[in-house]
């Protein structure tokens, strides 16, 4: 009974999956997709088991101070740190606003421009006005030179009539952006209109960041920002997560892959020896293909790339197709063995 029930389940589900190709009915497909979604959820839950296993395997080795126990400390600290950085801490209790806007001043006759002022709590904030290259929100004379460190002067620009899109962001990823839209009117509003505008901004601060703020020429619109630092692994990525990705994960990943260059050389030195006819052919083909693939081979003779193409297109493709077909039939047989209940080594002996 202990092995019969799993066998029956395996057979039934296996044939059900096989049938998906032949039964176009949407209800059948729905069941299939439901089972597939559940499998994905199960796989995701299994990561919790995996995390526990990592701790179960490594913590006793740290406690007993086994060989190279220090690396296991690095492993566990890294796992916990990355897991902590992957949680969206900034969104606990709701996401904070990254800034606000306020309009002030009376309209002056005939100026034609409104003034855009910045009051950013982030000294290193960059401002992008209408898709132009970024400028510094705090500068020491030349806001366009973002290679220089921030200064003490707050950015102030003139906006001609029309709609303008302003983005304030940090120079690095992982922080909120503050995007606003400002519509500078062609004519000056009456003071009554200004009162309505001001009340509107005060009543709807969140909407003010979405809808264009109407500004009259001569008025000053002040953009205040306090860009929230994001946490978390999902899009948008958190600052800490991005830093660890850029400075730890990326270099380590690339380094491990780079080892292959050295290992290929040492494996070739060891393995490509002309012990018999077949290995001599293998070694000859390897050398010809390597020479033909790189410009240095073409520089030596134009025949090398042609030989390389012929070896890859004719000899190599033939062999690969043969292996692929054999492997495909073997895969069908293995699947059939499990579906038909012939293979039972995963269940226990009879």
């Amino acid at each position, binding site marked *: 009974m202990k092995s019969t029930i799993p066998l029956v389940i395996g057979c039934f589900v296996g044939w059900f999956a096989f049938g998906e190709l*032949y039964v176009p009915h949407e209800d059948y497909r729905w069941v299939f997709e439901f089972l597939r979604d559940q499998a994905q959820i199960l796989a995701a839950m299994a990561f919790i088991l995996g995390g526990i296993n990592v701790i179960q395997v490594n913590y006793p080795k740290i406690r007993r101070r086994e060989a190279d126990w220090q690396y296991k400390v690095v492993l566990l600290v890294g796992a916990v740190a990355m897991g902590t950085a992957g949680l969206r801490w900034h969104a606990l209790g709701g996401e904070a606003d990254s800034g606000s806007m306020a309009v002030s001043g009376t309209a002056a006759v005939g100026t034609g421009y409104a003034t855009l002022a910045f009051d950013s709590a982030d000294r290193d904030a960059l401002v992008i006005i209408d898709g132009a290259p970024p400028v510094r929100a705090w500068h020491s004379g030349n806001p366009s030179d973002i290679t220089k460190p921030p200064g003490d002067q707050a950015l102030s620009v003139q906006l001609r009539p029309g709609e303008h899109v302003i983005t304030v962001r940090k120079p690095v990823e992982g922080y909120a952006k503050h995007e606003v839209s400002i519509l500078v009117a062609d004519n000056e509003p009456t003071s009554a209109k200004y009162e309505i505008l001001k009340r509107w901004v005060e009543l709807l601060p969140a909407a003010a960041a979405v809808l264009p703020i109407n500004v009259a020429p001569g008025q000053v619109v002040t953009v205040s920002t306090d860009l929230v630092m994001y946490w978390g692994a999902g899009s948008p990525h958190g600052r800490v997560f991005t830093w660890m990705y850029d400075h730890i994960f990326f270099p380590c990943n690339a380094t491990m892959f780079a080892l*292959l260059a050295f290992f290929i050389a040492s494996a070739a030195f060891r393995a490509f020896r002309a012990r018999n006819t077949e290995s001599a052919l293998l070694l000859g083909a390897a050398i010809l293909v390597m020479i033909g693939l790189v410009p240095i081979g073409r520089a030596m003779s134009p025949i090398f790339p042609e030989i390389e193409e012929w070896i890859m297109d004719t000899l190599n493709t033939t062999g690969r197709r043969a292996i692929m077909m054999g492997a495909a039939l073997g895969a069908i047989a293995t699947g059939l063995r499990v579906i038909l209940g012939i*293979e039972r080594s*995963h269940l226990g002996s009879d």
Partner: protein
Amino acid sequence: MNARLKIIVPIGVTIGVAAIAFLWRGNVEPSRWFTLEGPRAMYVAIVAAMAALLYYYLFRARRGDEIYIRRIAGVDAIEESVGRSTEMGRPVLYVTGVEDITNIQTIASLLVLGQVAEMTAEYDTELKVANFYPITMVVAEEIVKQGYTNAGRPDAHKPQNVMFISSEQFAFAAGVNGIILRDQPATNIYIGRFFAESLILAETGYLTKAIQIAGTAEITQLPFFIAACDYTLIGEEMYAVSAYMTRESRLLAMLKSTDVIKAFVIALLLAGAVFATYNHLAGSHEPWDLGGWLVGK
């Protein structure tokens, strides 16, 4: 059973099943509940032929006929290398590949793991299993436990030896390298689906003078395993391991049925090559599409 029947019956079964599916293919009206459009009929033919042949070879195996399998050096080496590990007092490392449980190569790897676990239990050698996905780890642990139980050594099983390393490719490679360099296994078995980390694992294993047996159907990684490992199981040899090791009649019958289908595929390839060559030499501008005709286009 006389020699002529031994050849005629499998050919007849295969042709018969394939013919039924082939004739069926244009004549079944697709409905909401069933369709044989496109190459589906051919798929059914292959699977049905395989199943029919399976039962034929099972019948022969149970009658006592010997079913021949050619020697696969890599599989023979598994037992020898487990013995070597026992003599040296060093563990056996088994890596199940870098794909999840839904991949057929991982399933094949886990099936072989069961046999290897029984062997290591009998020889009283430590077995360490490195897994890329947690769910593979869970299944592998059950299989290893069962293997030890089958060998009558349930007490010798250590659950902590079946490990989840990491689901990140190069972190996994780094973790397994660490196990190889620290625990110095005398035998490394890599069976499953591998990608770029294959050469990293194999070269590190070479450093520790371990015997390395690899098996994968991943064509891009076969050259690296062949260069760096002592034995390599190429493609379908990996799927044949459990049949080869256990010599169970059911598994051998499945292997034989696959071989017969393969023979038919070879015959089709030859026919197609001859046909295409003839078309080319005859200067035909609209050659008949043999492949399309077979799948009902």
